[in-house]
């Protein structure tokens, strides 16, 4: 039956299987490149236009007021034959000084388009840190229960299913839930606390599922060795399971950080103000801290991108905010990544 020699057979000739192979390979490669291209375009667009707002060509090279001041209304008016733009405070002072010249001059105003976004940055950081803390504590404890203590049965399987399904609930539903429960029923008002809890519940499924995976991935040998030395289950988990699972848990929290920072809907229902004059730490009593609403970057982006006119005067704040928001989320996520790297080094297995 052998019509060809081995040498003839293995010396490649195109067959249809090979052609399909090549075709599929290119299809897969192009899909991946297309996704990369889209992502690159988004980052390039925001990076270029937002970067132009944040970075300056002269010292100190960074637009400090944009990062340290609160949003203000922008005033645009004609003055001595040219357009002048001014934030509210500056404009009021200018007006007082040039009362006569400004009489009858039309002034266009654009809200939130002057000043900076410092309170929004602060609010976002507070929201992320608080909700991640709550989510990690609740999530890791639940995961420990599910992976180390619970014996598999119909109830536990149902519980797992419920947790996974919770991950599919749209964020706006979490927002309404938080609004109904924390803001109204518990009477927390629109507050950090209500936001923390709502956002934490939103990412809990992800954290629980990923933490459980991370705990399960810790080799059984460590648990057995520890127990065989006379450790209790709790001592074993605390010393020889949880520490090795932490890198995996932190991986899940990187994704969760991006979600709690960015999900606008639950935030605007439970924690975010469009505008607030006081900064979060300017509270009368310490106990009021958690019951105050804050300004937040994603909500600010939503407002400046959809509630104010789109023109050359308002463009800067839109791109600038988006840029700072991306940077803030990246910075918080990087902290988690670095922490994970450290832990990996410490507990290599």
């Amino acid at each position, binding site marked *: 039956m052998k019509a060809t020699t081995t040498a003839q057979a293995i010396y490649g000739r195109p067959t249809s299987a090979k052609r399909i192979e090549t075709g599929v390979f290119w299809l897969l490669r192009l899909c991946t490149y297309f996704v990369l291209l889209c992502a690159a375009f988004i980052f390039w667009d925001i990076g270029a236009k937002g970067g132009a707002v944040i970075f300056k060509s002269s010292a100190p090279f960074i637009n400090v007021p944009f990062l340290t001041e609160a949003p203000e209304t922008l005033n645009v008016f004609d003055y001595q034959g040219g357009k002048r733009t001014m934030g509210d405070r500056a404009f009021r002072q200018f007006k007082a000084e040039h009362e006569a010249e400004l009489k009858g001059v039309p002034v266009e105003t654009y809200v939130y388009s002057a000043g900076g976004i410092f309170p929004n940055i602060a609010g976002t950081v507070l929201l992320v840190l608080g909700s991640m803390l709550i989510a990690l504590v609740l999530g890791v404890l639940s995961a420990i229960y599910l992976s180390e203590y619970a*014996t*598999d049965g119909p109830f536990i399987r149902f519980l797992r299913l419920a947790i996974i399904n919770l991950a599919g609930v749209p964020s706006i539903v979490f927002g309404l839930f938080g609004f109904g429960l924390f803001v109204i029923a518990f009477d927390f008002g629109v507050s950090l606390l209500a936001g923390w809890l709502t956002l934490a519940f939103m990412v809990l499924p992800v954290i629980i599922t990923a933490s459980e995976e991370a705990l399960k991935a810790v*080799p059984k*040998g*460590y*648990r*057995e*060795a*520890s*127990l*065989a*030395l*006379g*450790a*209790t289950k709790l*001592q074993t988990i605390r*010393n*020889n399971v949880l520490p*090795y699972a932490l890198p995996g848990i932190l991986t899940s929290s990187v994704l969760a950080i991006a979600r709690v920072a960015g999900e606008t809907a639950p935030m605007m229902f439970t924690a975010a103000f469009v505008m607030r004059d006081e900064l979060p730490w300017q509270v009368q009593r310490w106990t009021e801290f958690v019951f105050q609403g804050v300004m937040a970057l994603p909500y600010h982006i939503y407002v400046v991108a959809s509630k104010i006119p789109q023109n050359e005067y308002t463009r800067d704040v839109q791109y600038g905010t988006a840029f700072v928001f991306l940077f803030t989320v990246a910075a918080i996520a990087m902290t988690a990544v670095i922490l994970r790297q450290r832990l990996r080094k410490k*507990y*290599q*297995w």
Partner: protein
Amino acid sequence: MVTLAPMPEPTVTPSAAPRPVAVAPAAPANPAARAVIEIDDVDFNYGAARALHDITLNIPERQVTAFIGPSGCGKSTLLRCLNRMNDLIDGARVSAGQIRIDGVDINDPRVDIIELRKRVGMVFQKSNPFPKSIYENITYGLRIQGQKSKARLDEVVERSLRGAALWDEVKDRLHESALGMSGGQQQRLCIARAIAVEPEIILMDEPCSALDPIATAKVEELIHELKKQFTIVIVTHNMQQAARCSDRTAFFYLGKLVEYADTRTIFMNPANPQTEAYVSGRFG
């Protein structure tokens, strides 16, 4: 002699009952040795599947007892009964019979499993040092018991490492990761970690199965030293190893104890043809 809390009233043990398994009446290596572990008519189940049938055997103090037999015959299962490691497996239980250590039924609900495991140490088939420093590995057992004194911990580290013939090799890198050691060193570290809590009995489940011949020889030498202080039960599928380092040998087949006698008898003059076939390498 350490005793397990709580001490029950002296019971009439059923060990005198006629044994269903043929046990060769061989003289033990040290006739004066007391039986520290008494296994009486033990059946063991994984859920509905019975893994051990009617096991009866007494393990003498300060001797090395080897469990041999083809894989899947229940050696590990029986070994893990002795420190109740099988408690970790859902549905696994001793379904009949009794296991006594120093006369105490270890499956009695009053037995403190933590205390039991402190007295009955274990070395596993796959060496499993914690991904921490050598020092932390050895002191782990004491630190969880609340021992904080640095001087005491240092002393135990040196004593245990010397006991495991590892001190000279690692004394200069006690604070480096245990995972940087060779496979044989890691296994001896696990032995050192087990003896640091001063157990009475050490269980070893195929401790050399992943080691090269030189590392294996070192561990065997170590076992020889350790039996001066500890009662050792070792599972091995390596018959030469059993012959070299044990005083008594138990041969298991399909969950049953086929023959239990002193090692010399098992290898030179077995009573049971199955044992004979196995030790001469004709099956298993």
